[in-house]
């Protein structure tokens, strides 16, 4: 019984990673950049929702919407100011810029909101699910997060597969010069990618803080890294990979903590990642593109 309960905890943690990882993988897959600031956009999203709910007294759905809107705009602005000028620069330069943006957001939040912890009110009003006569509990947050995850995953896959904008994204991710020759507005496509990724970040932030209700300017950073690992674990760029990677990572982390060592759970999680990548160099779902010689 306790195993199942750990498993549920793992899924619950994993679903939060997964939802963050979806945004990561989306931006990586299309814009081909490691957006290290993604975790901090999550933090911004959480603060916006927090302020909306607690300081402005807005209803929860409107607060979430506001958070999504602010993050979407933020994502597009960040892309336009910090990443767009470096579209054809070295990947490393973009990576460093992303890190700069991450520091910027963290310190901006520190200035505005202060370092004090804020306790986030859960936006989830779904009742916890009680199984096996109360021995197993699945919190409302978990249920909602997993559902949101699945919906977003399917939505994203369908969007990329069937929509014209989705096709444009694929083309841009391959070769943006050639994409322009197809009549694709590369800047707009990448903006759209960031808009979607950041909107997801807002949702992820709200759900993250609903499940783990403590909010500081650094809230997004570690879950961001873990989700990033999850995305790689599943095969970065792959949307179902992000989902599976996130859930698995959560489960591994919890089981390692429960059965091996709670001190070393991070080491174990990261070791599993290394082993997986050594065996499958492009992650669980990533496809290996062979270079034609």
């Amino acid at each position, binding site marked *: 019984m306790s195993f199942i309960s750990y498993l549920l905890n793992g899924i619950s943690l994993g679903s939060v990673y997964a939802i963050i990882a979806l945004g990561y993988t989306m931006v990586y897959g299309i814009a081909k950049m490691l957006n290290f600031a993604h975790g901090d956009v999550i933090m911004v999203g959480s603060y916006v929702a927090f302020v909306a709910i607690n300081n402005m007294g807005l209803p929860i759905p409107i607060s979430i919407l506001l958070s999504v809107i602010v993050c979407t705009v933020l994502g597009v602005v960040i892309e336009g100011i910090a990443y767009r000028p470096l579209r054809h620069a070295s990947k490393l330069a973009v990576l460093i810029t992303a890190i700069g943006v991450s520091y910027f957001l963290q*310190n901006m939040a520190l200035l505005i909101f202060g370092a004090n912890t804020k306790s986030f009110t859960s936006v989830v009003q779904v009742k916890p699910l009680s199984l096996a006569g109360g021995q197993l509990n699945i919190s409302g947050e978990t249920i909602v997060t997993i559902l949101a995850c699945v919906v977003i995953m399917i939505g994203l896959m369908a969007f990329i597969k069937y929509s014209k904008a989705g096709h444009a994204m694929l083309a841009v991710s391959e070769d943006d010069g050639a994409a322009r020759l197809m009549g694709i507005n590369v800047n707009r496509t990448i903006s759209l990618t960031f808009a979607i990724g950041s909107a997801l970040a807002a949702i992820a932030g709200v759900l993250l803080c609903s499940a783990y209700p403590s909010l500081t300017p650094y809230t997004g950073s570690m879950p961001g890294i873990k989700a990033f690992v999850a995305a790689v674990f599943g095969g970065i760029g792959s949307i179902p990979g992000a989902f599976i990677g996130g859930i698995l990572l959560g489960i591994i982390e919890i089981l390692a903590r429960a059965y091996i060592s709670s001190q070393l759970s991070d080491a174990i999680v990261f070791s599993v*990642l290394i082993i997986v990548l050594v065996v499958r160099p492009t992650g669980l779902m990533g496809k290996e593109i062979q270079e034609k010689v």
Partner: protein
Amino acid sequence: MKKMSKTARNSLITYGIVILAYVGCEIWMRFGNMSSLMEGLLVPLCVYAILAVSLNLTVGILGELSLGHAGFMCVGAFASATFTKCMEQAIPIPTVRFIIAVLIGVICAGICGILVGIPVLRLRGDYLAIVTLAFGEIIKNLVNAIYLGLDSKGFHFSMKSMLELNMEADGMVVINGAQGITGAPSDSNFTLGIIMLLITLFIVLNLINSRTGRAIMAIRDNRIAAESIGINITKYKIMAFSISAAMAGAAGVLYAHNLTTLTALPKNFGYNMSITILVFVVLGGIGSIRGSMISAVILTMLPEMLRSLDEYRMLIYAIVLIAAMILTWSPKAIELRERYSPMKLLRRKEKEVQ
């Protein structure tokens, strides 16, 4: 032949800058009134310069992105600090103790480099970056869980808690989990730091401008072509990676011996540090050894110089990062620079290598 002397001259300029800086600082310290802040920064500057130079070997020369450089630094720091803490009495001369500590740190970090490198260097691009990041986090996590004690019966080791060491009452706790190593003598000084930096530069610059360096750069530029002319990819990748790791270990030794208390926090040995080092490399010019050294020095001093700005300091640091990247890399900025630079004519010559 002319080219040989050119690279040699380039290296000499680099050594010259370091030596001049050293002599200048020494004179300033003795006869001028160098601020305490500056004096305190001298050893850290060497540490970060060594880190930047060593990471440049992986990132700039080998062309692989590593986000776990701090992990190797951590290995070097803890291995050597453990040694120094245990040997404080046995070896009374600090410099001798320090030299042995450096060797130990370098070897341990180098071995880690090989161990990580073998499985990992098969991975490409960003995957390698993630795995190195993971490695760095593993090291940090492990170090935080190590308990090591020394008493008359020898070493006691545990991964759980200090209580499990079962030590005699007069035993000495060497590594106390998250509390790390405290009370080890700080054996390093600016002169030793500069010597280590010079040795690092010597190794890296000579390596780059040799048969081995060419092979490594060939792998960076085109792996398939490098294979086709008979270059053993794995061997050279691991060689570059582990040398880079070993030198990061050396920096770790210097870092550890500049402090009396050594803990592995996200701040000093986590991915944040790895990223800070990467920033030095990228800002200084990927592949430019001298550049990364200089940018390490400037970027380490920058936040200290900005102290008067208080809480705006890190914000400004962030803006500086973004602005620097955009100004050095955006095509528009490059074009403007090229067009209006007074060096316009000189730049034309850049068509030739070096």
